[in-house]
């Protein structure tokens, strides 16, 4: 295992409001990490900074040894918290864009997933239900052979069956030496699949532990630990 992500003293403010406050952590390859916290705690800001969409002045984050930038965006696959494409956009057009922009995008794999989950390339984004749109976003993200996957709220507003499908796509397509970070409020749904958990409160990282250690040391499930911390 090698260090795939290193974060040292990452901070960010929106005007006067501090969204992230001196966050430091490292992530090894081959790990699935869940980031948990209440609304407005800074999860999405953290994900966006790791994805390189929010500028990091101090180069506090390095991915595969390089500061976040155009180079790291080539090895990081990002899924936002909602489908960002216009309603009139065809799935095939979005796939063509991914094929042009990302060398590691596997169009055949994406097509297989689309077939498996009953989606048609010729469909427009506006025709999809919320669950189908979420699946599409995950299919596009996970069809890349990236070193780091960043999924922001992949289960937001979708039913448990669709959530299960999304987990299936995630586990099926993630390469062994790649890492995955996801943020979610559905802790019970991901507790069995994540290796590490991070708790963020008011922009500060208050816990970063392997889930197994949490269970063995404290005898608590992840859900119990979360409720205890944030109640």
């Amino acid at each position, binding site marked *: 295992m090698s260090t795939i992500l290193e974060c040292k003293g990452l901070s960010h403010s929106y005007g006067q409001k501090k969204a992230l406050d001196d966050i430091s952590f490292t992530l090894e390859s081959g790990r699935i990490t869940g980031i948990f916290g209440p609304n407005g705690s800074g999860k999405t800001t953290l994900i966006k900074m790791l994805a390189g*969409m929010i500028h990091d002045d101090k180069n506090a984050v390095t991915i595969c040894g390089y500061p976040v930038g155009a180079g790291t965006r080539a090895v990081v696959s990002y899924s936002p918290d909602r489908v960002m494409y216009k309603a009139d956009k065809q799935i095939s057009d979005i796939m063509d864009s991914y094929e042009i922009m990302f060398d590691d995008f596997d169009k055949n794999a994406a097509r297989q997933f689309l077939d498996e989950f009953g989606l048609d390339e010729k469909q427009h984004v506006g025709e999809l239900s919320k669950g189908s749109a979420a699946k599409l976003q995950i299919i596009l993200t996970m069809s890349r052979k990236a070193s780091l996957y960043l999924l922001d709220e992949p289960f937001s507003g979708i039913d448990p069956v669709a959530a299960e499908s999304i987990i299936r796509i995630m586990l099926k397509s993630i390469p062994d030496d790649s890492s995955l970070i996801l943020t979610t409020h559905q802790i019970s749904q991901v507790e069995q699949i994540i290796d590490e958990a991070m708790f963020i409160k008011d922009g500060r990282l208050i816990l970063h532990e392997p889930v197994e250690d949490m269970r063995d040391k404290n005898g608590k499930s992840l859900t119990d630990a979360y409720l205890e911390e944030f109640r």
Partner: protein
Amino acid sequence: MNRLDRLEIKETKKIMLLLITLVAAYNLLAVLCSVLSNISASDAPFIMKVILMMISALGVVCAAVIMIARFYGILFTDEGLMRFSYPVEKNAHLKTNVKCGLMWLFAMITIIVAGLVISDAVTKREVEDWGAGNLYRNLAEHYAGNYLSAPSAKALLTVIICLIALAVFVINIYISFIFTLTMSSRICGKYNILQKKGVIFITGIVMFNIHLITVEVMSRIGAAFYANYDWLDLFERDGVFVELIDRSLANIIVYGITAIVMYRISKTILDKKLDI
């Protein structure tokens, strides 16, 4: 061509090729009207030609609006935000939009200019003798009539410099819109302003006033050159020649520099190195 350029062309080529086809069709009809005006006693074909050329010029406006709207989408919409997850520098989106936007614009302008030149060349009506398409021929005759040496070469030089000035002006106008959007996005982001369209409107007003000042500066520079054309003896003191060259050169300098400055500031804003 880099991959972002390829993507931009792929996403815009359908609508742009349609616009280009329409512009070409209107220009062809304008040429036909010029031919008809030679055999018809009525002014109708000439009037029709003018209307068709004006409509085809709208194609250029449509193309500019489409490309500027695409840049607005990159800065202010969710889909545009996703583009910042692409493996390119952030300012590459600016470069690509300006490159592709100007490419489509100049493709259409070239068709319109070609249409003007051809329709003025085929017409035998006196009223169209001084049309834009006959600029070179009329300048060459004028310079020859004023006993300038090498009148054809000087006429060609005048036309080329005027066309460059027109091109620089078009580039400046396009980059002004892009700059307005970039500045607006920075202001909205820095001060957490949600009324994005309001900020764009106000920034646009400010930019328009800056343009008025630029035009005034350009006119005064042009007038100063014209008043002091003694040092331009090599142009043999022909009024039309010197004035056209002077004003065009002043245009190129003033609009060229402001376009470069606006582009560089936009690039820096996108790289988030500049706090406004």
